[in-house]
């Protein structure tokens, strides 16, 4: 029996997820929020790969994590373009200033 089991990997995944959520909630820097999103997606990836190793699901979890990685790269590209646009228009990347659409 492998002493490092599924639950240890799920623990790491939960830790990454919570750190990412707290990062998204507290950072005032747009780039910092993006880093939080990356951490959340990585926590999900750890869970996918660990479950593909420790359950009879086989390769499916690894393929799901591949799709997550590709979509995370796409999301980072678009969000960074939006952040640069915001910086060009407001000369700031403080998310608290992004209130132009407030009713």
């Amino acid at each position, binding site marked *: 029996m492998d002493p490092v089991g599924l639950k240890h990997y799920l623990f790491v995944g939960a830790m990454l997820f919570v750190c990412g959520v707290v990062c998204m909630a507290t950072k005032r820097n747009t780039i910092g929020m993006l880093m939080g999103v990356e951490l959340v997606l990585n926590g999900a990836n750890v869970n996918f790969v660990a479950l593909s190793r420790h359950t009879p699901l086989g390769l499916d979890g690894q393929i799901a994590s591949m799709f997550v990685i590709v979509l995370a790269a796409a999301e980072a590209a678009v969000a960074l373009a939006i952040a640069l646009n915001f910086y060009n*228009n407001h000369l700031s990347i403080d998310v608290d200033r992004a209130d132009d659409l407030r009713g």
Partner: protein
Amino acid sequence: MGVLVFTIFALAACGGALAVVLSQNVVRMAFWLIISLSSVAGLFFLLNADFVGATQLLIYVGGTVVLLIFGVMLTAQGPYTNLKTNPGEMVLALAVGGAVFAMLVAAFTGVDWDANSDQIERKFGSASTQVAGYNQQDEGSSVRRMGAALSGIRTESLRDGRNLKRPGYLLPFEIVSVHLLVVLVGASYLARAKRRVAPSQSSPAA
């Protein structure tokens, strides 16, 4: 040996993530993010997912983080590298985060993960749980089987020799390909510098 390597990688991943949260300088946050993501790649290698681990290193650490660092360089001016979080908000966020973490841990420790295995095997057929390892001479790596699955062919060997009853991933692969193309076109359109407010109108830095 495996326990030691797992402990090192898991501590580096969790510690890097915590440091990303607690650090206030955006450049240091990028550094800790690199540490955390690389350690997650090490965890993937430990899980015998060699192709996913290599992709994590190439795309995340080599691509996405470089993209973020370019974002930092393009937007970093004096005050914006150190946007302080309100300490009260930070304490509140850490308390809520700790509660969420406790809930997640309680959730997954309460599940008997082995109980579902025989149901899954009965329903879908059992691929060998030994996913692609370095220790298997005839299997090689998971690259070949993942490539076949992404082009719609499942080649995992079943224990009883039947065909695997699960579909391939050709359609999601095509959708993701077109999605990535559209996203890159859209990002390059969005990122063009169009206009900039006159410095007189810009409000002073926070």
